[in-house]
């Protein structure tokens, strides 16, 4: 009986999700972008995490003129499909509409050395680590059984791949837990020296700017736009990626 109830509720939820998906596409094509956002977000609120879904939400937000939320959802989609050409094209376009010039540029040498981090999705990196790990230990076992020197070179290659991707994957777990990035949502927001509204305005950010969240306290976040530009912002004015 319990199983039947679970199955029924699951089927009903799947129907709602499908309905929301079809309606979202319909509203988008009819240029009713706010309604399209609402429908697509119903799917996300149902617990579905999917890069393509986040991409669609971002598209609808961008068409609706909400640059902040568009960049936020594109960034969220990027975690699931960093290699997707459509996503990268649209994100680049959305970034071109952001008023603030990014100042915290990533070190190009690190980008080259750790190119795979932005090339593969998290799931892909995890599976590469697992498969190379399996390969390495499999080859090691065969070498032990058959005492064959020919297996040594493939085993070393698998070991290198396994170490690189395992460490990358573990760093991504660390990044997910401890390194928070966010996107500014309002068209214009003041970054202040303290938590109160009368604190000194340090600088102004506009919608779509990406910031790093250092600390959260009393409904406010201390954010870092660059090494020199740090300040407090209302937590409601940013969306965590």
């Amino acid at each position, binding site marked *: 009986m319990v199983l039947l109830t679970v199955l029924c509720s699951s089927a009903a939820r*799947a129907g709602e*999700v*499908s309905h929301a*998906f079809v309606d979202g*596409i319909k509203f*988008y094509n009819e240029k009713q972008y706010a309604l399209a956002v609402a429908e697509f977000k119903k*799917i996300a609120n149902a*617990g*579905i*995490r*999917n*890069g*393509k*879904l986040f*991409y*669609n939400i971002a*598209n609808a937000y*961008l*068409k609706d003129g909400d640059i902040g939320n568009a960049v936020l959802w594109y960034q969220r989609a990027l975690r*699931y499909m960093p290699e997707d050409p*459509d996503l990268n*094209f*649209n994100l680049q*376009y*959305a970034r071109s509409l952001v008023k603030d010039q990014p100042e915290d540029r990533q070190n190009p040498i690190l980008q080259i050395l750790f190119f795979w981090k932005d090339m593969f999705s*998290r*799931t892909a990196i*995890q599976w590469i*680590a*697992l498969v190379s*790990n*399996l390969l*390495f*230990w*499999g080859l*090691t*076992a065969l070498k*032990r*059984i058959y005492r064959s020197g020919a297996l040594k070179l493939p085993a070393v290659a698998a070991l290198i791949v396994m170490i690189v991707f*395992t460490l990358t*994957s573990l760093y991504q*777990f660390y990044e997910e837990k401890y390194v928070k990035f966010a996107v500014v949502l309002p068209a214009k927001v003041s970054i202040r020296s303290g938590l109160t509204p009368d604190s000194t305005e340090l600088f102004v950010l506009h919608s779509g700017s990406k910031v790093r969240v250092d600390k959260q306290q009393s409904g406010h976040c201390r954010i870092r736009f660059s090494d020199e530009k740090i300040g407090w912002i209302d937590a409601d004015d940013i969306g965590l990626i």
Partner: protein
Amino acid sequence: MDAYLLKKNPGLPAIVMLVVMLMVPVSAGALDVQAHVDRSRISLNESLNLTVSLSGGEGTVDSSSIVDFQVVSRGTSTRVQIVNSHVSKTTVYQYVLIPQKVGKFTIPPLPVMSGGHAYHTRPITVEVTQTSVNKADGNRDVFVTAEVSNDSPYVGQQICYSFRLYHAVSISNARLQKPEFSGFNAKEVDDSRTYNADISGRSYNVTELDYVLIPITSGRMTIGPAVLSCDVQIRQGGGYASPFDSFFGGGQRVQRVFSTNSLTVTVSALPDSPGNVPFSGLVGEFSLDASLESDTIAAGDSTTLAVVFQGTGNIMDVEEPRIQAPEGFKVYSDSPEEHINFDSRGYSGKKTFRKALVATKEGAFTIAPIRMSYFDIGERTYKILETPPLKLKAVPPADAEMPIIMETSEAEPPRILKKKKVEFTGRDILSLKTEPDVMTHSSVMPLTRFVVLLLIPFLICVGIHVACVVGKSSNDPQREMAERARRNLRQASDARIDLKEFLGCLYKALISAVYSRTGSRGESLTYQEVDAFLKSGGCSDTLSERASRLLKDIEFARYGGTEMDAAARTKLLGKTRQLIRDLQRR
């Protein structure tokens, strides 16, 4: 008060008074709200002052319910009175009301909000009569006028609204409240003009402000009065002062409000376009010209076609003309270039559209005339703008290495194109993703599962290794024989055993070491067999002979009945141990 202090600070009594006034509580009680006007009968070109007084508290006055008059706020003042230690405070709101039409009107009760309660003033009736016999302009010291350059324009035709302030006496603090210009796109001309005018023999300073108005819709539009408030200098004995009075300090300033008359503008819709030529959307007076940068180019090269619209009117609204390029040309648009002036006559200037024409084959070509129509306000009709046909010749390229020759059929000559950087001609985002997998959950593996999956192959590998080690140790004769050699050697080391047993252990230890060396099992060997056995197993001759000799010595002692003292036993044991060690060392 100390006389010394008073002498040192002559302003001290005033400061103390002020502090006392601020500290003494203002008399509490219900708010007393009063409203009155300075005149209850005015003519259409006059204004009246409305004063709202709030006593016994503070509040805010809402004047939005006055609809029959234009309301201009003149600010707020506060008066504090102390009578027999009783402090009362009165706040006065002042307004200037300008009538809009003739009739009898009521200023409605004005709501005053104070401490969450609403108080109301009493209604006041005012009668507005026809304009009284004006003084001739030349007899007035200050007055304002407004006019439009054309009171019957077409939709899209620009007209000029001019506000003029005439003053023959000194004025200051002038503030203008311009009309709303409903139904028009209005833009103020930045530079106001100041000049002198002679009216009825009297010299006036004139300040003129201009607004360019472009009607948006057709119909009868009313432009409300413009209201100017300023401080005017008057003589002490009444009447306005001359500009020289202020210089000599012979007058005082009073605030006055002046308003212009409302203006009516009748806007006509544009007549229907003839339709045979596309309407450019331009209203005004315009010309059109087109020219080529070069009329002879090499195939693969480009030339620029410039189409220039020029004139007075909404030149900025002209859209890019459609150009029919001859076959054999590719057309690339450039951003239009605008040079637009704005003054009291409105917008004027020119807008240039440039297109790069790239010849893809040789030959003589003609660019068809560009035709567009506009509405000419001078002649009140549509007129057609047309460029002359332009001749263009594409010759073979001088340098055949630069262009890329595109392969075509044999019948056609090869087409030649230069490589060009591809530019965006429009910007938009790519479309939605509509695959069904949008609705599937793509979860990221949790850390614990990831670590467990990493450890499983490692553990399996370790298991295999252990199995190998265990399996090998149980079946390997080499290991078994070596273990037996060690065991017998250890037994032989025991001093409590007798000689026979000692020699038996040495024999077994040596034989076991020999078998271990050759990787086989066995119990006994003669010293001749040992030599041959070891040599066949790859041992050196020296080692084989050493082993054979030692075995011979042991057998001789074992079966020959030779007595051995403890030192001889130790020496033989040492030789045997060393040999076994050498045999096990590969």
